[in-house]
């Protein structure tokens, strides 16, 4: 039994739908603006309906060098994809290995290693900007994919999550595998990785978003447009024109910048929600 009030139900739906509209509004305006040309855009306030350009602005930014960027958005999308995939795969791979060592082996300094990894939660790139930049520069990583990816692939969160998951694996499974003649690498490949599939998928979504949406680090490490990411390019586009901001170009680029991560989250929503809630535990 549940106390139901029809009026409240309707009001709830109404408020939720209102919120949905409000949340979609910025994106809707971006879509409409991206279909106008600059002249029609600047005739008044931002248009609520599509303009005459259709997908023309998208085609333009994808195929021709944009403003002062000196490159087209296709290149930026490629850079972002490489970075996001590199970070997601890298983080997951090294976190799996580290958590595996910490849970399934006993060795001196095991706890210290765990704490060293865990404590990196306290050192986000934002608090060690200058020296990290310097290290990357000294290693010759400026303007390179390695430089975009490598410094960001340590992950306390992922290591912690895999550790939590491994701790729930029944110890008899490891013992059975040992009796069956499986060594550490075989156990990892044949038993543990197949069992971690959903956790890996969930983390992949979260880490892909993390990688794609990075701002400060790519801003520092890429000075040339051939390694610039699409998220970072927006600011340059905004400040590129001396007088009028070319909003139709900015919005087309912004939409392209949010398309891949939004697609990932929508397609993999089930894993994403699981990943979020697990990350909390």
């Amino acid at each position, binding site marked *: 039994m549940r106390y139901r009030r029809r009026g*409240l*139900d309707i009001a*709830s739906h109404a408020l*939720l739908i209102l*919120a*949905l509209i409000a*949340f979609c*509004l*910025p994106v809707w*305006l971006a879509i409409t603006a991206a279909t106008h040309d600059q002249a029609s855009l600047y005739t008044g306030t*931002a248009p609520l309906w599509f303009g005459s350009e259709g997908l023309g602005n998208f085609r333009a930014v994808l195929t021709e060098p944009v403003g002062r960027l000196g490159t087209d958005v296709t290149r930026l999308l490629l850079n972002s994809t490489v970075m996001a995939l590199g970070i997601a795969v890298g983080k997951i791979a*090294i976190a799996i*290995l*580290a958590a595996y*060592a*910490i*849970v399934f*082996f*006993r*060795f001196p300094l*095991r706890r210290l*290693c765990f704490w*060293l990894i865990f404590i*990196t939660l*306290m*050192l986000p790139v*934002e608090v*060690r900007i*200058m*020296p*990290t930049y310097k290290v990357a520069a000294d290693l010759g990583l400026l303007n390179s994919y390695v430089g975009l990816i490598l*410094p960001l*692939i*340590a992950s306390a969160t992922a290591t912690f999550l895999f550790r939590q998951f491994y701790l729930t694996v029944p110890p008899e499974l*490891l*013992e059975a595998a*040992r009796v069956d003649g499986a060594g*550490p690498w075989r156990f990892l490949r044949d038993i543990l990785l197949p069992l971690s599939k959903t956790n890996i998928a969930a983390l992949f979504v979260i880490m892909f978003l993390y990688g794609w*949406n990075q*701002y*400060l680090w790519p801003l520092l490490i890429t000075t040339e447009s051939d390694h610039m990411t699409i*998220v*970072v390019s*927006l*600011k340059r586009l*905004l400040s590129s024109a001396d007088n009028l*901001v070319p909003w139709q170009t*900015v*919005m087309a680029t*912004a939409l392209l*910048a*949010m398309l891949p*991560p939004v697609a*990932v989250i*929508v397609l993999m929503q089930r894993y*994403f*929600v699981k990943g*979020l*809630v697990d990350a*909390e535990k």
Partner: protein
Amino acid sequence: MATFQRHRVTPWLLLTPQIAVVAIFFFWPAAQAMLQAFYVEDPFGLGRTFVAFENFARVLASAEYYRALGITVTFSAGVALGAMALALLLAVLADRVIKGAGAYKALLIWPYAVAPAVAGVLWGFMLDPELGLISAGLGALGIDWNHQLNGGQAMALVVMASIWKQMSYNFVFFLAGLQAIPRSLLEAAAIDGAGPWRRFWTITFPLLSPTSFFLLVMNSVYAFFETFGTIDATTAGGPGGATRTLVYKVFEDGFIGYDLGSSAAQSVLLMGLVGLLTLLQFRYLERRVQY
């Protein structure tokens, strides 16, 4: 826990990648920042002088630093409370309609995937002094919106954009928390004569407090660090430093002002702050997770 015995080298092989990255890109730079904080670099980069705590003293004596601290607190409180309150309201609504809660979740979740910088750009367009739809609406109400000139409005812009992005994260957690509350508890309260309003404040809200606490920490971390992109892409700390948060100031002093000592000292102070937040977070984890 069962373990592999007699494997001495394997665990180190497994740990090497993680430890190497952590050492090279986390601990080494962090140590550098700490060391740097005690030196002053000469302007031509030819040498440096040990100045003990002078950098810290300089930072802590500057009015600019306290202004940035105040802005950070205002900004973080605005983002955290705004995003949480809005998410809680929507989660409660979605939870009580039963039919469609999943659909609303699916439709509200995607802003989480939008980069902070992109969120800033989208809102910057809606509030653009010339073209913006909302700024036009506000103009009609007699409010002259120009976040490029008005510091308060600039702050409001970055807060709104940040809330818009973070809300969905909170929504997922609040909805999960609400759905985990046993129906029987609410039914018992209903039988005891508590109306929906009272039921919410006496049963639901207290039972959500662990979730709320966790979200408060996560939202603070988000507002502190991840919103750098939002700020840089829209206001760049301006106008006149009105949106210059602590993190933004570290960046500005280091990369634009080249005051390495001061930037490093600020980094160290920030690390302390993050340490505090992490500790809070870990205390929460500890209660939830058996170590």
